[in-house]
């Protein structure tokens, strides 16, 4: 092989690998991303049942029902609208009434949401970032502990 041919093989191989990766990325972005919505978004944007989404908001006070089994019911609210959620499993450590939550799953078509994953991942200020931002955008006033930076102000 001449020097030129060798370089051709290298460049061709590189371009082919990048092209394959690009195709994979585009397909994956089309099929496997999940949108984040609050309860009022779902109504406004007309999210269809069966479409996989992340539902974010606050766990409504007094709405959590733990049965004898492993299915738990609670309501997710953005204070304007709320949606009943069912989830089977063990809730994460930081799941609490009145605090932020992100549930991943699908709308069941009867006004409810069936979650297969519940995240209460959050920063040190007890609020998942998506939730805090979405709620603020809807003009919801958050408690002192929910605001980043408020911890400093609370200290004597």
């Amino acid at each position, binding site marked *: 092989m001449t020097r030129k041919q060798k370089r051709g093989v290298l460049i061709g191989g590189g371009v082919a690998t990048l092209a394959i990766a690009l195709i994979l990325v585009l397909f994956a972005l089309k099929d496997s991303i999940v949108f984040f919505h609050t309860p009022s978004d779902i109504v406004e944007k007309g999210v269809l049942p069966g479409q996989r989404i992340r539902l974010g908001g606050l766990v409504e006070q007094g709405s959590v029902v733990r049965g004898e*089994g492993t299915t738990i019911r609670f309501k997710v609210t953005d204070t304007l609208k709320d949606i009943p959620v069912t989830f089977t499993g063990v809730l994460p450590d930081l799941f609490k009434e009145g605090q932020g939550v992100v549930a991943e799953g699908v709308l069941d078509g009867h006004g409810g949401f069936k979650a297969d994953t519940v995240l209460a991942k959050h920063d040190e200020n007890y609020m998942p*970032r998506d939730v805090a931002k979405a709620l603020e955008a809807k003009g919801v006033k958050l408690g002192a502990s929910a605001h980043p930076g408020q911890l400093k102000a609370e200290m004597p």
Partner: protein
Amino acid sequence: MIVELGHFALILALLVAVVQVVVPAFGAHVRDERMMRVAEPAAISQLLLIAIAFFALMHAYVTSDFSVLNVAENSHSTKPLIYKMAGVWGNHEGSMLLWVLILALFGAAVALFGNNLPPTLKARVLSVQASIAVAFLLFSLLTSNPFVRLDPAPPDGNGLNPILQDPALAFHPPFLYTGYVGFSIAFSFAIAALIEGRIDAAWARWVRPWTLAAWMFLTIGISMGSWWAYYELGWGGWWFWDPVENASFMPWLAGTALLHSALVMEKREALKIWTVLLAILTFSLSLMGTFIVRSGVLTSVHSFAVDPARGVFILAILVFFTGGGLALFALRAKDIQPGGLFQPISREGSLVLNNLLLVTAAATVLVGTLYPMALEGLTGEKISVGPPFFNMTFGPLMIPLLIALPFGPLLAWKRGDLLGAMQRLAFAFLAALVTVVTVYAVEHRGPWLAPFGIALGVYVMAGAIIEWANRVKLGSAGRDEIVRRATNLPRSAYGTLFAHFGVGMLMVGIVATSAYREEHILAMKPGDRVMVDGYQVTFTKVERGRGPNYTEDIADFNVKRDGETVATLQPAKRLYDAPPQPTTEAGIHAAWRGDLYVVIGDAQPGGGYAVRAYFNPLVRFIWLGALFMFFGGGISLSDRRLRVGAPARTRAAMPVPAE
């Protein structure tokens, strides 16, 4: 007083670093030896000053000095001593101080051990290294000062997030940062060499040990983080493709590529331009990771815009070093003489393929990490890019990489014999085939591709052993000859054996756990039992307990196998005093065949508990594989030819024929 001393030392370190940037670089330019030699004492005193600052902060943590804002926000008087110490880097300001400490540590190490470097190169490397230190010391002092006082001091602190109060996580950041920041040396060498205009095989020989050391620590740091997530977060998962994880994984992928391309450059003087570029890109990805984790862009793109000081500062650092490095590269790369020629089928060719796939994989991870942030910033639309994205993009790129992996070491430099390599790998193909058949016979569940994935791992493991067996002439030479060859083999060959074997183990562990995990979610009351993969798990009781700074509900699970008690698991639910936050402690019974993993949820009205029980087959292989890679790196680093400062031995004196 000690706190002010630390603050002062940090400012002094900045001034020393400025001197270290300017004087040696100018000295190297005008060939003034005295000016160039300023770099060494400067690098060492910079390290000492930053160490004083670091230990001053640690002192404030250990003595619970809540008049320091950083301590008051992140520590608490009742915290165990080890977490008071680890608390230093459990927050933004302190972790940036650790960052610059490690940066200075690497700089001082080059100053002390880089005796065989040409004086101008050494002066320039230390100058570039100090310029990174200047940027981050400024960042620390101007936007993230850990020494700010609080008046009046509160009676007690806010405490450290309880999920961080864990031995593995306490030592995860130092290891991770040592890896991350260690790539700065490769970057400094690349920039210095570009300024110098001389890049040859010797350059690769100097860069490789530093890159290898950084890579080892990054490997162990990432796997410690993964192990922690596995047992502490209570989900039984070990990798989440979370942006914070990706931030450390991207430099690891690029660093792995750099290790291999530097090998080609050292042995064959080929791929010079590419290796230099890769050195710049690897550290740029480290900076990118620092930006992602430290700028607040993760908390929300929104909050980043509200309080932009930190984010914009790190972004500026990222743009300056990446952009500057690439611009210099663009200017000088054309002057680099092309090196040795090789056929596509050759050792070099296989390493090019390795680089191509690893760098492309890093790029897909980069897209998956940045795309949601970019989309949110541009359109306000919020999406999450989770495991399905990475399984679809990253996964397929790893398959050709692993198939090609055992071929690499079996191919000769310059021109390899593919057919010959395949013949030598016959045993590995056979092992893979046996694995596929066995797994299908044993497991009827799971995706149909899974047995092939496990077989791929076994094939890589077998390939690593075959390469070694080949070199010691196992099977063809006599016993004495084999022993002689095995002892004379360079340590770097054993490093390759261990590291590649570890890659295979990692693959086996990942596929087995992902495909054949058994999961049970159920409500249990004391006395109830459940069968999990042949284990009979009986919930016996729950007791209330008290730890140093938490109360806990400890459950007792009796685990029987074939009628005999093999373990008692005690998963717990803890509630910490400060901050008042619950954590889940998993009960794990570890065995070679897999982990039995039990966690309890909240108490239910009827006296029962929600219980999650998993069986994670072969999950230990994941961390064991990473450990093998770490040790492989260590063995390779101890190789005389690589050891920093060791005089180069002549080729003729080498006991083993050239590879």
